[in-house]
C-alpha cells in the first residue's frame, strides 16, 4: 500500500466523479440467493458428494462381493493398485488425452475463429453443425470410426476409387514412423484411439473457444496492425493472450474427460492401447475388486487435479478466468 503522497492525490482527483459515501442500506431478502442455490446444491449432494464419499469409503474397505465389505482403513489397496497395473495405462491415458487435446485445439481454433468472425449469416447453422454429433449416441459415433478406418472402409475405398492410394500409403508410413500404427491397418491402433478421442471431444473445445473468440474486439487487431505488428505478431501478442481463457476452458473440457475415457480405447484400440478407464472398468465389472477400482479412480482424480491446477497457473489465466 503506497503512502498517501502527491501521486495518490492526483489519482483521486481524477476520480472526483466517483460516488461519495456508501449507498443507503436497504432491506435485502437474505434468503433469496440461498433459495436460488438450493436445487443445484441438493442435486450435487445426492449425485456427486455422496457417491464420492461412498467411493472413498469403498477404496478403504476389505472383503469380497459374496461376503460383503467392511471399512478397515486398508490403505494398502492404494499401494497395491499403483504397483500392480497403474503406471503404463495411466501414462498412456495422459499422452493420448494430451495429443487429442492438442489436435482438437489445432482443428478447433481456426474453426471457432471462422464461425465467430467470418461466417456471417451461416453462424447459427455452423454452430448447430458443431453440436450435431450429440444427436447420436456416443457409442454409435465411435463405432462409425470403425467404418471409416477399417480395412476396405470409407477411407481406403475412397482412396482406391480416386486412385489416391499412394497418398494413404504415404500417410500410413508417417503414422508407422510415429508408432501410431504397427501394421498396415489403421484400425485397432493408437492412431484410431486418438482419432476417436479428438473427434468425440472436439465440440467441447470449439464451443468455449467460440464464445471467447466471438467477444474479441476486432478493433484491437486493427490497433495492433496500426502499431507495427505483422499478422503473426498480432496473433502472438494480442489475439492469443486474449483467447487464453477460452483455450484453457476448452483444453480442460477436452482433456479431463478424454483422460478418463475408455469407450474409444475399447472400440478402436487393441491390447496395447489400454487406458486407465478400461482398467477401472474391468476391476469394477469383471474382476469385481471394488476397493482397487475405487482406489484407482481416486488416484486418477488426484493426478488430473494436480495437472489442471499446474496448467491453469502456468497459463497465467487465473485473473482472466
Amino acid at each position: 500500500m503506497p503512502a498517501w503522497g502527491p501521486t495518490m492525490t492526483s489519482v483521486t482527483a481524477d476520480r472526483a466523479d466517483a460516488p461519495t459515501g456508501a449507498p443507503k442500506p436497504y432491506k435485502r431478502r437474505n434468503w433469496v440467493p440461498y433459495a436460488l442455490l438450493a436445487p443445484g446444491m441438493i442435486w450435487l449432494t445426492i449425485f456427486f458428494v455422496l457417491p464420492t464419499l461412498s467411493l472413498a469409503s469403498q477404496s478403504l474397505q476389505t472383503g469380497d462381493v459374496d461376503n460383503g465389505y467392511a471399512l478397515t482403513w486398508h490403505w494398502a489397496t492404494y499401494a497395491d493398485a499403483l504397483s500392480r497395473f497403474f503406471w503404463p495405462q495411466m501414462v498412456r491415458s495422459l499422452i493420448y488425452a494430451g495429443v487429442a487435446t492438442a489436435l482438437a485445439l489445432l482443428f478447433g481454433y481456426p474453426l471457432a475463429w471462422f464461425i465467430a468472425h467470418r461466417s456471417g449469416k451461416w453462424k447459427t447453422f455452423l454452430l448447430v453443425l458443431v453440436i450435431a454429433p450429440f444427436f447420436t449416441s456416443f457409442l454409435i459415433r465411435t463405432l462409425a470410426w470403425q467404418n471409416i478406418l477399417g480395412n476396405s472402409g470409407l477411407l481406403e475405398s475412397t482412396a482406391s476409387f480416386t486412385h489416391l492410394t499412394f497418398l494413404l500409403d504415404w500417410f500410413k508410413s508417417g503414422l508407422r514412423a510415429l508408432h501410431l500404427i504397427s501394421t498396415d491397418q489403421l484400425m485397432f491402433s493408437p492412431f484410431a484411439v486418438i482419432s476417436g478421442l479428438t473427434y468425440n471431444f472436439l465440440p467441447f473445445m470449439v464451443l468455449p473457444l467460440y464464445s471467447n473468440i466471438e467477444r474479441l474486439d476486432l478493433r484491437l487487431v486493427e490497433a495492433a496492425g496500426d502499431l507495427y505488428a505483422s499478422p503473426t505478431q498480432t496473433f502472438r501478442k494480442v489475439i492469443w493472450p486474449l483467447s487464453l481463457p477460452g483455450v484453457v476452458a476448452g483444453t480442460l473440457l477436452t482433456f479431463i474427460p478424454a483422460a478418463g475415457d475408455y469407450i474409444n480405447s475399447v472400440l478402436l484400440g487393441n491390447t496395447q492401447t489400454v487406458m486407465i478407464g478400461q482398467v477401472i472398468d474391468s476391476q469394477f465389472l469383471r474382476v469385481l475388486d471394488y476397493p482397487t477400482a475405487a482406489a484407482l479412480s481416486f488416484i486418477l482424480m488426484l493426478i488430473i487435479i494436480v495437472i489442471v491446477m499446474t496448467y491453469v497457473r502456468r497459463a497465467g489465466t487465473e485473473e482472466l478466468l
Partner: protein
Amino acid sequence: MAASESGDLTITAVTKQFDAFRAVDNITLTIPQGSFFALLGPSGCGKTTTLRMVAGLDHPTAGTITIADRDITRLKPYQRNVNTVFQSYALFPHLDILENVAFGLRRRGDKDWKKKSEDALALVELSQVARKKPTQLSGGMQQRVALARALVNRPDVLLLDEPLGALDLKLRRQMQIELKRIQSEVGLTFVHVTHDQEEAMTMADSIAVMNAGHIEQLGDPATLYENPASTFVANFLGQSNLLEARITGPAEGGLMHATTHGIDVLVSAARVPEGLTDVWIGVRPEKLRLGPGGRNALQGNVTDASFTGVSTQYLVRLPWGFEVMVVQQNDGSTRAQVGENVTVSWDPGQEFILDQSQDEDAGMGADDD
C-alpha cells in the same frame, strides 16, 4: 530507430466505394508537415473512411496517398509510419499501461523502448499509473494513454479519430488544449477527424469540411467562418442568417446594391461572386446589431430572447415572416423585450454572399448525432 524522412501528406483523387455506397468521392488534399489538420463533417460524410485509408485500415478504390512523395496507398498498416488514436481507444486489456505504450516500439525492435515509453507517459502526465491495467483508468486517462501509445512512435502522421467523443464536455475542453499543447511540443502532423465544429476550430490550423464524400471547403478556421463557400459550410460552422436577395447594381466605395424583399441593402462588391444575381446574403448572428447602428437596417419584432450571461440571443421576425438570430454581447447596452419592435442592422462587408441555387438548409443540425 532510423530517422524517418517526414513530409507532407498528400491525398490525390482518392475514391472509396463500398458496394453501392461511395463513401469518399474523388478527394484531393495536401496536408503540410507539422500542421494540425481537421477533417470536419457530419457522420457519414466520409471523414473516418479517409482517415482509415491513410492508416491503411481501408484501401482506396482509386487514387493515391503519399507521405513525403513516397506512395503508401497499397502498404499494410504495419508497414507505414502512421499511427492512430482510435475513437474507442482500443487499449490492449491484457497489457499494463507501460506495455500498451511500448507496443509499437517493441514491434519495431527499439532497444530504448522503456525510456521512450516512460517519457511519453510523462508527456501525458500519467507516469503514476504505468503499472495499472487499462480498465482501472477513467475514460480521460485511457484517452491520454491511447495518445501516448501513438505519439511514442514519432509517426510521420498521427491520426485522431474523434478522440474526444467519449469524454464529457469539461474534460473535452481540457483535452483540446492539452492536445494542441502536445502537438506544438512534438511538432508532428496531426490529422483530426471530428463532427464537432467548435473542436475543429479550436485546435486545427486548417480544416477540410466534408459532406457526402467530397470536400466542401478547405481553409483556416477564420476563413471558413467569415467566408463560407457554400450554405452547407455556413450552416455547419456556427449559425448563419441567410437572406434571399438580388444584386441590383454597383454602388460607390467598392459596394453593390442588393434588394431583399424590397429593402435596399449594400454589400461589399469583393464578396459577390462574378456574374451572380440571385444570391443568399449571409450574416452571422453576432455581426447583427439591435438598433440602427449599421448602414443596412431591417425592421422586425422580437419573438424570443434568451439570456446566457455573456450574451443574449434574440430571434427577430422580419416583416415577411423570416426569423433572424441576433447575438448581443452583454456590454451594458439595453436589452430588448419579447414583442418589442426593433431595428436590426449591420455594416456592408460583414456579410458573405452565396449562390441562391444552393439549399438554404444544407448542413443544418447535421452535427446532431
